[in-house]
């Protein structure tokens, strides 16, 4: 069944304000026997892939499978920082493609993803940070991407709660500012893509864990085994973030990935106090304020690989100590919740998007600690890759075989544990 989604407008709001209840925004589908394309993982990237496949390539016989609920992975657990000021030209093309799509996404989906370009400020605390960030600023300007260097006073003017005094435990020597960077509402991104994809006929199937990848005599992937029965597929896209290694092992493919818990926390809600996003790679602290008023804080990863989805308390405590040094006025705030997600990191801190040694099997992973910002772009170029059977030009450098050829795309300085 394909149903047109409710068109959100001032009129529809008015009507519902008068007492009509909102209908469910996407179909909770049951698996069919087979599909043209099966996508494993209903996070933002998987749902966006399905959306662009349906919209731009007319492929509508698609299932998006998730072992849990839609958006319940890293998409619904991240601190939502969006920016495109990475270092290498390949990355600039990738993240800038996504940023351009963010700018019009609410309109495109007729769903408010609350993209807010409030500026991302990256603090330099030592001489090395200053050199690295200035290098990024210059590289970005050559790439036509906005990124500018601020003095400590200018950083303070942009973000008044920031402590830049001479007694600062982590001195601020300057900052890189990307004004077009910002945040978006993570759940709305998953919901917006799900709703729009579902309206075009895509089946979104929750509580359906993939337990095996079926291959024919030639070795090609032809379907998946799931907790809700076998499902055939002409093409399979694995978009499973921290669980990618486990899924690819089902097809006998070893991956250059390690999965680590990464944590975030939110404070009690307060009146508007943080006008922008502030990141500090050196002390592993990221902070912004949600529209609900909570301070949203990102911490570091655990030292060891794990699927525990919790993370050590000492990691979060270290981040809070750093936040209190940089923003002394936040010392008395209470934290409401903390949680973890499992992030899939690659050796060069760049994603893997493309074909695999198994015909019919495609992968989009390795976004690690920083893939939310790429959601629309990632879905867009992965849809092209799945539809045409060859990598989209922006995806091409991010192939799996770069780990054999040695053409790595080193973004350790741009990404580190940063977002």
């Amino acid at each position, binding site marked *: 069944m394909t149903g047109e989604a409710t068109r959100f407008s001032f009129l529809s709001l008015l009507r519902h304000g008068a007492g009509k209840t909102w209908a469910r925004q996407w179909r909770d589908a049951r698996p069919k026997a087979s599909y043209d394309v099966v996508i494993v993982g209903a996070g933002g990237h998987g749902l966006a892939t399905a959306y662009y496949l349906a919209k731009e390539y007319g492929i509508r016989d698609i299932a998006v499978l998730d072992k849990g609920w839609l958006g319940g992975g890293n998409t619904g657990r991240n601190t939502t920082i969006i920016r495109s000021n990475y270092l290498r030209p390949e990355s600039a093309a990738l993240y800038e493609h996504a940023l351009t799509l963010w700018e019009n996404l609410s309109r495109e989906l007729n769903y408010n993803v609350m993209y807010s370009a409030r500026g991302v400020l990256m603090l330099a605390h030592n001489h090395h940070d200053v050199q690295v960030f200035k290098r990024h600023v210059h590289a970005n300007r050559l790439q036509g991407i906005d990124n500018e260097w601020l003095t400590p006073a200018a950083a303070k003017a942009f973000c008044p709660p920031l402590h830049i005094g001479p007694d600062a435990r982590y001195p601020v020597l300057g900052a890189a500012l990307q004004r077009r960077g910002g945040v978006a509402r993570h759940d709305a991104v998953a919901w917006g893509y799900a709703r729009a994809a579902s309206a075009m006929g895509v089946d979104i199937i929750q509580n359906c864990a993939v337990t095996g990848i079926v291959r024919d005599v030639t070795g090609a992937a032809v379907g998946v085994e799931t907790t809700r029965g076998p499902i055939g597929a002409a093409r399979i896209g694995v978009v499973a973030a921290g669980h990618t*290694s*486990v899924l690819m092992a089902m097809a006998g493919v070893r991956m250059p990935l*390690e*999965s680590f818990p990464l944590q975030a926390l939110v404070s009690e809600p307060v009146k508007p106090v943080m006008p922008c996003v502030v990141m500090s790679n050196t002390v592993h602290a990221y902070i912004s304020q949600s529209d609900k008023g909570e301070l949203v804080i990102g911490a570091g990863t655990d030292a060891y*690989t794990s699927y525990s989805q919790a993370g050590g*308390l000492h990691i979060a405590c270290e981040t809070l100590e750093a936040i209190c040094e940089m923003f002394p006025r936040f010392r008395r705030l209470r934290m409401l919740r903390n949680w973890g997600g499992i992030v899939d990191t690659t050796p060069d801190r760049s994603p893997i998007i493309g074909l695999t040694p198994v015909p019919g099997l495609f992968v989009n992973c390795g976004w690690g600690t920083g893939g939310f910002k790429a959601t629309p772009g990632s879905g867009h170029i992965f849809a092209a890759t799945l539809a045409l059977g060859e990598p989209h030009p922006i995806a091409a450098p991010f192939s799996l075989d770069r780990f054999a*050829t040695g053409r790595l795309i080193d973004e350790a300085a741009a990404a580190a544990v940063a977002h």
Partner: protein
Amino acid sequence: MLRIPCPWCGPRPENEFRYGGQAGLIRPANPAAVSDAGWGGYLYLRANPRGRHVERWRHLHGCGRFFTCVRDTVTDRIASTHKPGEAVP
């Protein structure tokens, strides 16, 4: 924070240790003879299992020694630790 039993010093808090990744990776004796894919595999491919993981740790802020640890990556429970050269069950 994990409590990790160093084979020499006994149980100590995790922040005394440094994680060293998957254990048992053997550098090819003659790198020049290895294919690009083989060399890339040695450098970058990792088991990354959900479950039993055999891994390297170092008791950096203690005895300083390397050892092998068997841990479940879902529960983070440590099954055993072993001195170098000891057989891992």
